[in-house]
């Protein structure tokens, strides 16, 4: 297993428009992200939830790497579950709430933007999203990992049984797979942010 290889960050993109999904996928891939696109909030939760349930430590490295989600980018206006509804559900979930969420909208409505930011969205992009917007994503991913590292330090005891995965989140079991894989990706950053992960890789 190529432990030394840097795995790209994985972004889950949610948009009911096929055209916009194609566009965001291209934008993300061009910016070296691994991408999964879904066409609704419920499918997004399914994707996140399924992997959340399956990820009980220790799981093989390969599985974890494939399913981990490091950031969610979602359209605001979608039929059924809106981007805002999805955001709320993510923030309500102990296993998912540390994953940064970015909202996209074609409408520049300050009250909408504020509402999303207040609910915990990390960023708001006005559509059409551009290549230059992509550079704003990585900082949020790295920031959330620092936050997880802080949580992990706070909860040293409870992490003992999740040591093999990655100690990233205050929820040792059933945490988002994104937390697990974060520790394995970005070797250089792992070394500086989460020294413990060096040990965890040997499991």
């Amino acid at each position, binding site marked *: 297993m190529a432990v030394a290889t840097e795995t790209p960050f994985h972004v889950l993109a949610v948009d009911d*428009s*096929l*055209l*916009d999904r*194609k*566009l965001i996928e*291209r*934008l993300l*891939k*061009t910016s070296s992200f691994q991408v999964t696109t879904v066409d609704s909030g419920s499918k997004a939760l399914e994707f996140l939830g399924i992997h959340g349930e399956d990820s009980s430590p220790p799981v093989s490295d390969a599985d974890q790497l494939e399913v981990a989600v490091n950031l969610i980018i979602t359209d605001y*206006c979608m039929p059924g579950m809106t981007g805002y509804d999805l955001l709320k559900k993510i923030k309500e979930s102990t296993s998912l709430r540390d994953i940064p969420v970015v909202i996209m909208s*074609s409408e520049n409505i300050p009250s909408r933007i504020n509402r999303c930011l207040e609910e915990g969205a990390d960023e708001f992009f006005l*559509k*059409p999203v*551009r*290549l230059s917007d992509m550079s704003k994503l990585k900082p949020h991913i790295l920031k959330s990992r620092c936050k997880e590292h802080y949580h992990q330090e706070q909860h040293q005891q409870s992490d003992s049984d999740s040591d093999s995965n990655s100690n990233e989140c205050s929820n040792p079991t059933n945490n988002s797979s994104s937390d697990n894989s974060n520790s394995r990706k970005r070797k250089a950053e792992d070394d500086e942010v989460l020294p413990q992960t060096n040990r965890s890789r040997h499991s």
Partner: protein
Amino acid sequence: MDYSNLRRQIISMKKSLFDQGYLDEQFNQLEELQDDSSPNFVEEVVALFFKDSSRLLTNIERALEKYPQDFYRLDSLAHQFKGSGSSIGALRMKNECSMFKAHCSDRNLEGCRRSLQKMKREHATLKQKLETYFQLLRQVGPRERAVNSWK
């Protein structure tokens, strides 16, 4: 093969599409995203737009013919149309959709009908122009096409 003539035609056509307001900067953004790994990206996205928008136009027309008109739904359809148009840089289309939406807000049926006719015309014109543009591009081949310097 001598591409210089073709290139000139392509550059000139593109300039005119921008000057006449058919396209805006977003179209350039799409072209920037096209490369060897995705050599037909722009054409694919544009094809998606026309597929989407044809369907929306049909739905809008049907919704207008229903009585009583559901202006909320009409606005929603126009909103989707506007979004797709905006994603590919179809400026005139986007603006006409905004007009349509304004008529929906006013519950102005006649205004909506007039606007729909304009949308259909803009749609057909843009489709024809872009088809020509892509035809020209195809003649220069993928390698030349991927060169951004001659925007």
